């Protein structure tokens, strides 16, 4: 479970707060999506969860950990994050990269063993990346790299998963497969938090949507609660209509041409 309570973040030199009293909860067993326009504070939520920005006030909790005081390595055994962008400085074999997910389970002098390799292999199978394990990270396509990164996150073995724009670089088939996998992982009892621009996609998979605007929660609830023209239009400052997806009946956002 992720619990953000009255979180306030201000970057040095900024005139406004990046997070301005945001509160929401991501429950285990389902997908929670954080959406919002550019600059609404979505990525700051992720950076706050991994301790890369400190909260000026409020709190962020992951399971039993308070992010402000938790031992980072212990927390990385519960929380795994797939950030928006990541590029290894020195390319390495995908298998070795996935094994990095086991580092939080070891101290400086304990060696990674066959048990870690087995966990990494299972994670790769789960993420649909097992046939990529012998490739080098710089030889992978965008979609392949995304799957390998998901495998690394799964190898961390925690039950809380945070993904920043997981659909980036994925074609339609891989995107649907990835979201289907996240849905499955959630059903097994994990907490899945997605940060995404793609409202239509998250509306199909997320049980709970949190709409951020200027660093605070403008609306939160089921897709039906949030995916409404009167809720979204003022936040995005753009004329919108919401239709129904003919196949599954999920709400679909259609931005209009401004007249």
């Amino acid at each position, binding site marked *: 479970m992720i619990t953000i309570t009255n979180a306030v973040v201000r970057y*040095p030199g900024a005139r406004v707060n990046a997070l301005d009293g945001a509160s929401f909860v991501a429950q285990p067993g389902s997908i929670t999506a954080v959406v919002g326009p550019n600059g609404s504070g979505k990525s700051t939520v*992720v*950076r706050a969860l*991994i*301790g*890369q920005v400190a909260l000026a006030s409020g709190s962020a909790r992951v399971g039993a950990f308070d992010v402000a005081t938790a031992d*980072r*390595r*212990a*927390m*990385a*055994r519960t*929380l*795994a*994050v*797939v*950030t928006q*962008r*990541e*590029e*290894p*400085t*020195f390319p*390495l*074999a995908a298998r*070795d990269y996935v094994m*990095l*997910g086991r*580092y*939080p389970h*070891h101290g*400086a*002098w304990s060696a990674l063993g066959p048990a870690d390799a087995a966990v990494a292999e299972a994670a790769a199978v789960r993420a649909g990346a097992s046939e990529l394990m012998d490739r080098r990270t710089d030889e992978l396509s965008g979609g392949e790299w995304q799957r390998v990164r998901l495998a690394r996150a799964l190898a*961390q073995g925690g039950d809380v998963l945070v993904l920043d724009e997981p659909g980036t670089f994925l074609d339609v088939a891989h995107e649907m497969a990835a979201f289907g996998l996240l849905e499955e992982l959630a059903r097994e009892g994990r907490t899945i938090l997605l940060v995404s621009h793609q409202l239509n996609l998250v509306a199909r998979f997320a049980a709970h949507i949190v709409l951020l605007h200027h660093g605070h929660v403008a609306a939160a609830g089921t897709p039906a609660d949030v995916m409404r023209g009167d809720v979204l239009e003022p936040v995005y400052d753009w004329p919108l209509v919401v239709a129904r997806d003919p196949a599954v009946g999920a709400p679909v956002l259609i931005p209009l041409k401004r007249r």
Partner: protein
Amino acid sequence: MTSARWLLLFAVLAVAGAAGLAIGPVSIGVVDVVRALAGSGDAQSVAIVRDLRLARVCLAMIAGAVLGMSGAALQGTLRNALAEPYLLGVSGGAAMGAVLAVVAGLTAAVALPVAAFGGAASAVALVLVIARVTSGRADPRVLLMAGVVVGAFANAAIMVLLAGAGEGTVRNALWWMMGSVAGAEWVTIRWLAFYALVAGTLLVAVARDIDLLALGEDAAAGLGVRVSSATRRIFLLSALLAAVTVAGAGLVGFVGLVVPAIARAFGIRRARELLLASAVLGAALVVGADVVARTVRAPAELPLGAVTALVGVPFFLVRLRRAA
């Protein structure tokens, strides 16, 4: 990394070490070198091998090992394949300290190394303070830029100091700046070896952080690294390691840049293995360079720093071509 490759690395080091003991103005056969090391050869061989060359080889090995490790740690942590200890203000600071000592006429044997270390440590501290003040954290880009700027400032100060100095002083200072293991003293070597072992062990202990930092700050943070403090700690350890080498052997350039690249071209990726391989390769490179430095124009000696570059660059290019 297979054990055959490790064996190859250590074989390279052994060959370099043997060459360092056997080759010189007076050539001594390998059998006689072994006998001399045991103290049972003729008196002249024993004196040359044990009193002169062994010290040189040891100092060269330590300097090379330390610079190789320092470069390997910095390149991963700062996410830059061009990072090397001398880029980070260490060389400029050390040179300024040494030149100050020379210009001030301090001639005691310990004065130069102590002044050089003092200069290097001050430069490193200054770089860290600049990064802290400007970015509020240990930003790799700011660290690199601050290092280059502090180094440039120190070099300018050296020019000013030397502009009014006598010819002998300039020559002394220049000679030191070009690096040499000629005057190796056992007391210096023991002290360096101890320091290198402690700092090297500490670096190996944070090797996993180096692996994770090489992925980027947010990815490393997500895997449990306290990014800013880990970066600062590794930076400080690497820079101080380089500073100690500079104090003992002057500016031996290029090793920290080229050695990790060669090790990586051997297929070594994990920071812990990379640190160890860079130590072995760096030691071999500097010992080999020293052999070249004292034989090519014997009895005159070439500057060691120039030779490390002359020996290292072709090796680097060959490995680069094979890796590509």
